[in-house]
């Protein structure tokens, strides 16, 4: 026996919804954010609607039970129940949404704010568009010296950074739990792998207080490292960050020479 189409549609929706929850929250143990799940389900519903209504005959079949319920006197009881239950459900939804809660409001924070074109670092104006890591070229020119620099960078990292960013560079240092926003996870494909070295240099040297306006609210606990480290130490720790995680810095080759900038 074939299920009525309305039921089919409802089952698909419920199935997908539960599927998301089971797969993310239980099997993968990484909860799916409520905001995203709402958006996902909205478009899944749109998709189901599309598949169930592109044909006139199928659409009629889909809405037949609804029509029957509204129009056919036999189903009067069911109709009255539905007409009472739905407004009540909506009312409950509105009520629970407007009920004040103690949850802090969510923030649309920008993790990677746009860098300024120049920044004041170590008392000097540097042009971030053209700035390059002075040690990077050893990677091809002299791998041995390069390895040494990476080693020195590692020492800087262990002394200064691992408390927050973690000894595996995964953003899970011993202090991390207490901070919000949490220190960034460099292993993640969405952080340093997306950035140029000059960007890192700027972020490390000027820290949380150096964040531009749009990264507001400014609450990052990242220290201003130009007050504690030398320029060379910062460049070396950057070498280490990329070396350890296996990411390569973002680069555009000679993009700027021809850019007419």
């Amino acid at each position: 026996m074939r299920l009525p189409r309305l039921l089919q549609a409802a089952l698909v929706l419920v199935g997908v919804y539960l599927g998301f929850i089971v797969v993310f929250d239980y099997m993968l143990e990484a909860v799916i954010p409520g905001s995203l799940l709402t958006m996902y389900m909205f478009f899944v519903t749109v998709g189901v609607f599309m598949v169930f209504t592109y044909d006139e005959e199928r659409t009629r079949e889909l809405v037949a039970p609804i029509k029957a319920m509204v129009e056919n006197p036999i189903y009067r009881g069911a109709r009255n129940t539905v007409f009472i239950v739905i407004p009540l459900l909506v009312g409950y939804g509105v009520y629970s949404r407007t009920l004040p809660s103690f949850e802090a409001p969510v923030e649309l924070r920008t993790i990677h704010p746009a860098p300024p074109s120049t920044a004041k670092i170590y008392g000097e104006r540097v042009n971030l568009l053209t700035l390059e890591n002075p040690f990077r070229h050893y990677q091809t020119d002299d791998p041995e010296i390069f390895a040494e620099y990476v080693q020195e960078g590692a020492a800087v990292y262990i002394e200064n950074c691992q408390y927050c960013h973690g000894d595996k560079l995964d953003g899970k240092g011993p202090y991390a739990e207490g901070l919000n926003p949490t220190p960034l996870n460099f292993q993640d494909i969405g952080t340093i792998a997306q950035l140029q070295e000059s960007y890192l240099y700027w972020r490390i040297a000027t820290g949380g207080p150096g964040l531009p306006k749009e990264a507001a609210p400014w609450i990052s606990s990242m220290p201003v490292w130009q007050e504690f480290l030398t320029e060379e130490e910062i460049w070396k720790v950057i070498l280490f960050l990329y070396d350890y995680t296996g990411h390569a810095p973002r680069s555009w080759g000679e993009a700027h020479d021809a850019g007419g900038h």
Partner: protein
Amino acid sequence: MRKTLSFGFLASLVALVVCVLAGTGPALAQEAAGFGPAPVLTAADYPTVAGVNGRLVIWIVAQLHLWFAAFVLAVPIFVFIIEAIGMRTRDKRYDDMAYEFIKVSITAYSITAILGGLLLFSLILFYPHLFGYLSTIFSKSMFYYALLFFGESAVLYLYYYGWHWLQGDLRKWIHLSLGLLLNAIGTTLMLLANAWLTFMMSPAGVDPAGVFNGNEWEAIHNFLWNPINIHRFVANIAYGGSIVGAYAAFKFLTARTSQEKAHYDWMGYNANFIAICALLPLPFAGYYLAAEIYAYSQQMGITLMGGIFAWLFIIQAVLIGALFLSANYYLWCGMGRSDGARRYYWAIKYIAIVLIGAFLVWFTPHTLVLTNSELKSLGGPHHSILGPLGIMPAKNTAVNLMIIFTFLSFLIYRRSNKVATVSWEGMGNTLQVALFTAGILNILFLGIYHGYFTNTVYKVAASIPQVLTTFVVIVVSLVLDSFIYRGARDVGPLHWGRIPDRAQYALFLLAVAFTWLMGLMGYIRSGIRQHWHVVDIMRDNSPNAFTPTLGYAANVVSVAAVIFLTLVIFVFWIAKVSSVKTLPAGYWKE
């Protein structure tokens, strides 16, 4: 004989246009003479007029002008193509449809010009120094622009009013050539206007203080000029198609007779077809533009994609998805026109599953909005599964899949009314499936391998073979299908007009989503200049130089979109009114 003659005429016309276009380059690169640096302004240099907010006025007027201009430039492009198809097939329906399209665009044309004038006045009134600076640099091109407008109007009116006059062998060729000329002028106009706005983003031909070196061609041919040109050209066609589609839907829904319904159904189908054809390459033009913005300035690039505007990109992603979904839905609904469509209904749900799945990946944001309890349970803002879906390689893969499956919808639509008669049909179908399978596997491989296991240069580079794969799949399967269905027989006549009203709303959605999308993305494009009139050269020191909140920007764009759509409905209505005749009995003396 006559045909060759008119071909010669056409060819020489093309050659002429090319010469003029190429000639402007060197001609503009003339003498340099005492140009000053870009003016340094204070808040007092921005007049308030009648107490209105100058930025808001410019924003809305420029946006409205652009919407209309996009529509008005696009319509002649496909009117030209449709007219040519009509000439080739000698099917008069095409000619009538082309005429109706251009008729709709005539009223829109004058609105475009009015809005252009309004924009010019507003710029001079509210930003006199900026306009002054730009006009010293673009003096010649602005002058030619004004002159070209004359040409555009003249040719347009000749083209439109001469439509029924210029019929028949040679005359039709002359008419078609007028259409070509119209497009050449229209496109040149757009290219010039694009030069001015891209100069504001990626100035060229000036030194760091803004002193112009006198070479106007250099200023026109700045770094972002061509990326914008390509993007706008393709997008205009898709946009024009969607607006005309909305027109057809409007007419379909208000049609009284089944003949009218059939006509407007057919028109809507063609408009939607045009829109889809231009929509398919559009994401790539967009990526190219974004990549060039990044290449020009990392700062602008990150503002664009990673900074505050990133949230608008989520809305953009949702809207683009909505475009794809409504275009597909329209195709599926349209299959009902054929009696043979049922054979393919089974495939639709699988297409839908892939489309929706790819769409979900496509709009998954890079930075998730998390509640505190979710943050705690994840141990930070990074999501190990969803995080990787937030970046480019995943999006590229998703959009390529969306394109391939939209194409598949189109393919089965085309097949729905045909029965192949070749003996190797089964083998041909197997080949088709194999082609799609291999293509999809390759796209997934490129996205996953290069996206997550190589560095950024490869990540970006991998999008090129991905696109090409999509392209190859489309072209090869079209060719293959044309062989499989060579000499095929029709299941029966197509029942134009046999389509649910819902499908017409999909066409409306297409137009509305497109409008909104253009407004939002246009705001972003202009917003990434932040507090600069001309990036790094001329600072915006007006009290309005701040970047507004997302909610405010979205509201402004939405209000502008509503104004635009109201005007468009007016245009549709006027086109309808013009053909209505009232015969009041006893009013006129006999």
